[in-house]
């Protein structure tokens, strides 16, 4: 085991090496889990403020400057609330579910690289780890729905599990494209491989697919039929109150931000930007880009109406899944051709090596992949336009018919 940084300092200061190592790892764990915990408090305020602005309100503005302390007030209220467990609930599982839900999101942050030098762990299987850990959230929701012993909760849980399991497929397929381009599943390597060109320019379609399916994975609007208030009362968390509800709530908010960070790392170059060698500036770049995607997510949430379960499922199975599979096949084909011809940056062994490549080296591959993506998007957009036009024409015809014979109809 190597001993650097804090561990080295403690060891030099006369501490036992094993203890120094343990303390430094422990401090790292505290920091890695502390960052998201602090962030989520702030995020709830941001979400409420943005939602209020979009709906032409002011939002929280009473507690603290600009209502910044509102979340703390809410937190105290949630903690003081009576902690209710329904009599017929499965007590153990009922109390375990919120914990698992929150843990599944916090665990993702272990592999997220904040800067080239600051990360919890650089796992060889980083992307796979993230997908695996996120799938624990499904389990938490299922457990919550069943353990509450409430038919609305169970119905909500059924829906959400069907939703989450199906949207995992396009999510994983779109994740495979950055993995394939970088030739590594480590998130750190994926960011370094984007030093010549961000992956969003190589595969914009994959970035969009990832955004949509990760949005569905968190159960946010327009995919928020987990907690459709008007149909299911509140979905799987109907019986939860107090801080247990608060944990589900915080987990959802944190998951949205985590997805924003992940899309930044996978497709938008993570911390890469001007002067990224400075840790503070690198961290700022990551923060700015993630905040942008977080805002887009809030924007969509507050403007798009909720979809029905069958619409959501059809959209996934008949559109996202085939598209993501075709995209993966086509992209790998193009990359293979370019690798054989030699138009991509290669290392000594003849493998594709994007890390450290400059803009000029990346240009042929980027242009080719962009063209392929455009070729795939064009017919889809055209079809959507035709559908929209037909609907509009049908509407106009109906209106004209009504004008011509006002007595009939209505």
């Amino acid at each position, binding site marked *: 085991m190597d001993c650097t940084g804090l561990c080295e300092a403690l060891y030099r200061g006369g501490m036992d090496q094993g203890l120094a190592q343990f303390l430094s790892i422990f401090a790292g764990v505290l920091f890695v889990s502390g960052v998201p915990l602090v962030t989520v408090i702030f995020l709830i305020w941001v979400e409420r403020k943005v939602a209020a602005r979009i709906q032409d309100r002011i939002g929280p503005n009473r507690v603290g400057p600009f209502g910044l302390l509102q979340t703390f007030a809410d937190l105290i209220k949630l903690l003081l609330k009576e902690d209710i467990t329904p009599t017929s609930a499965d007590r153990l599982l009922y109390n375990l579910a919120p914990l698992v839900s929150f843990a599944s999101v916090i665990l993702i942050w272990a592999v997220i690289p904040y800067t080239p030098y600051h990360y919890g762990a650089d796992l060889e299987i980083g992307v796979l780890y993230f997908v695996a850990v996120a799938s624990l959230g499904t389990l938490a929701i299922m457990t919550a729905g069943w353990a509450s012993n409430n038919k609305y909760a169970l119905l909500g849980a*059924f829906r959400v599990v069907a939703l989450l399991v199906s949207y995992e497929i396009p999510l994983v397929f779109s994740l495979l494209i950055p993995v394939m381009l970088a030739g590594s599943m480590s998130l750190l390597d994926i960011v370094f491989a984007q030093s010549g060109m961000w992956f969003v320019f190589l595969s914009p379609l994959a970035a969009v697919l990832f955004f949509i399916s990760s949005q569905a994975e968190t159960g946010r609007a327009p995919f928020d039929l987990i907690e459709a208030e008007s149909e299911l009362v509140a979905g799987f968390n109907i019986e939860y109150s107090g801080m247990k509800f608060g944990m589900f709530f915080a987990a959802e908010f944190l998951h949205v931000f985590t997805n924003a960070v992940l899309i930044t790392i996978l497709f938008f170059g993570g911390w890469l930007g001007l002067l990224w060698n400075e840790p503070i500036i690198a961290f700022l770049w990551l923060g700015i880009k993630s905040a942008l995607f977080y805002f887009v997510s809030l924007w969509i949430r507050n403007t798009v109406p909720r979809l029905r379960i069958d619409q959501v499922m059809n959209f996934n199975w008949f559109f996202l899944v085939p598209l993501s599979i075709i995209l993966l096949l086509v992209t790998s084909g193009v990359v293979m051709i370019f690798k054989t011809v030699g138009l991509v940056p290669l290392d000594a062994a003849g493998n594709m090596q994007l890390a450290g490549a400059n803009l000029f080296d990346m240009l042929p591959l980027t242009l080719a992949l962009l063209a392929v993506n455009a070729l795939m998007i064009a017919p889809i957009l055209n079809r959507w336009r035709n559908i929209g036009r037909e609907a509009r024409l049908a509407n106009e015809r109906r209106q004209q018919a009504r004008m011509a014979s006002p007595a009939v109809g209505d």
Partner: protein
Amino acid sequence: MEFEFNVVTVAFFVFSFITLAGGYAVVTAKNLFRGTIWLMMSLFGVSGLYLTLSAPFLAAVQILVYIGAIAILFTFAVMLTRSLTNLRDLYVRPQINLVGAVLLFVLIVVGVILPLFAANPQPPVSDEVIRTVDLGVALASGNGFVIPFEVASLLLTAAMIGAIVIARDTDDLV
């Protein structure tokens, strides 16, 4: 080989306990939904054991495939068949089967493991292990596992189609 007490050993005992306790809870669970939760716990312990064996790829796949997919499938099956209320007789001939299972365990441990492997324990032949990339290369290369890989994908497709056809409610197609 000297037995040393370190992080990996402690992790091994913790994960072994989780695995076996979960397994025991699965076969004794009265309530089958809880049974699936114990199953997940047990499989989680197995994934921890893979970690102590320096196979992080298998550990992640274990969580993804077993907990994320198979166990969820089990919860669905439990709910769809209302197995929760089906509790009159938990076991068929429990005593004789218990004796059989214990005998099997004793036979494996006394007959195979203790004389062959515990008598002179060997340390691992090397501290280095293959990387995940090597597995990927082996699965796709012509003199590796490409044919088993293709057969496995065929098997999965067949299983998927079979499961859909068998579990269909009605005979009409769409």
